[in-house]
């Protein structure tokens, strides 16, 4: 990657590091991420559009969601993203053991996220709130379901990253692959942040 600028970025307290500006990971992963962001933006707009046409109905259905579980899952996502970002930094310093622990910790957060989602979905279905109940629950299951597919794929990527950093010292392309995988995982976190606000919080007060 062509360096276009140089600046000081204090990554670690008291240990400033010289960085050349470069894209984290491969350019291709950013193209994929851009496409995913635009697709989800369309979903977010559709949700708000349908909500605007039936605010009372959406608010009533939304009240059946457990905001505490939404909060818990958001904290799990944020924590997983923090661990992945830290793992990438350790990997860049050839600290494979610490990097692997961070990535596996993130997978643990992802597994906990999935368990919370399963409990939540199970409870909703038991209460009779299914995808066909109304427009709110259609969006709820669709958006959270598509996001869950991202979580499953991302967890597989994180496991592969943990195996890579444990196995050997990283070559340049392996470091880029680690960064690409991490960037994908942060996308999963980023999308959930907006979903949490839209599905659980907005309109309830």
């Amino acid at each position: 990657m062509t360096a276009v600028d140089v600046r000081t970025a204090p990554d670690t307290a008291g240990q400033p590091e010289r960085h050349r500006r470069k894209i984290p990971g491969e350019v291709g992963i950013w193209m994929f991420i851009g496409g995913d962001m635009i697709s989800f933006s369309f979903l977010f707009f559709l949700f708000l559009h349908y909500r605007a046409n039936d605010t009372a109905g959406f608010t009533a259905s939304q009240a059946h969601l457990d905001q505490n579980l939404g909060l818990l899952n958001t904290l799990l996502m944020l924590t997983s993203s923090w661990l992945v970002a830290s793992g990438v930094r350790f990997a860049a310093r050839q600290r494979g053991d610490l990097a692997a622990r961070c990535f596996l910790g993130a997978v643990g957060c992802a597994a906990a996220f999935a368990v919370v989602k399963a409990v939540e979905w199970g409870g909703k279905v038991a209460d009779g709130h299914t995808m066909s109940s109304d427009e709110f629950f259609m969006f709820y299951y669709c958006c959270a379901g598509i996001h869950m597919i991202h979580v499953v794929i991302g967890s597989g990527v994180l496991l592969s990253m943990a195996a890579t950093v444990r196995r050997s010292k990283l070559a340049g392309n392996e470091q880029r692959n680690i960064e690409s995988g991490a960037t994908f995982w942060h996308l999963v976190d980023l999308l959930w942040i907006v979903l949490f606000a839209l599905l659980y919080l907005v309109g309830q007060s």
Partner: protein
Amino acid sequence: MTELLQTRTTAVWAALAGVTVLSWAMGSGMGISDVETAGVVILLISLVKVRFVLSDFMEVRTAPLWLGRATDAWLAALGIMMISRFLIG
């Protein structure tokens, strides 16, 4: 453990977690009583959180400037679109 905790990334994570709890409290009837105002504040907070995830976790902060401009443009468009659709019912 010190290597993990004493970083800007950890400070950003702690701040994001704190702001998440604040958003949750506003969506749970604590704080702002007006639904529309609370909704706009919650959406704005989520967009600020997303920007920090992009800049610090996804390392856009140290990436070529065009990438930061592109993600900022997307974020601004998303914010305008979501907040306007939320307010104009």
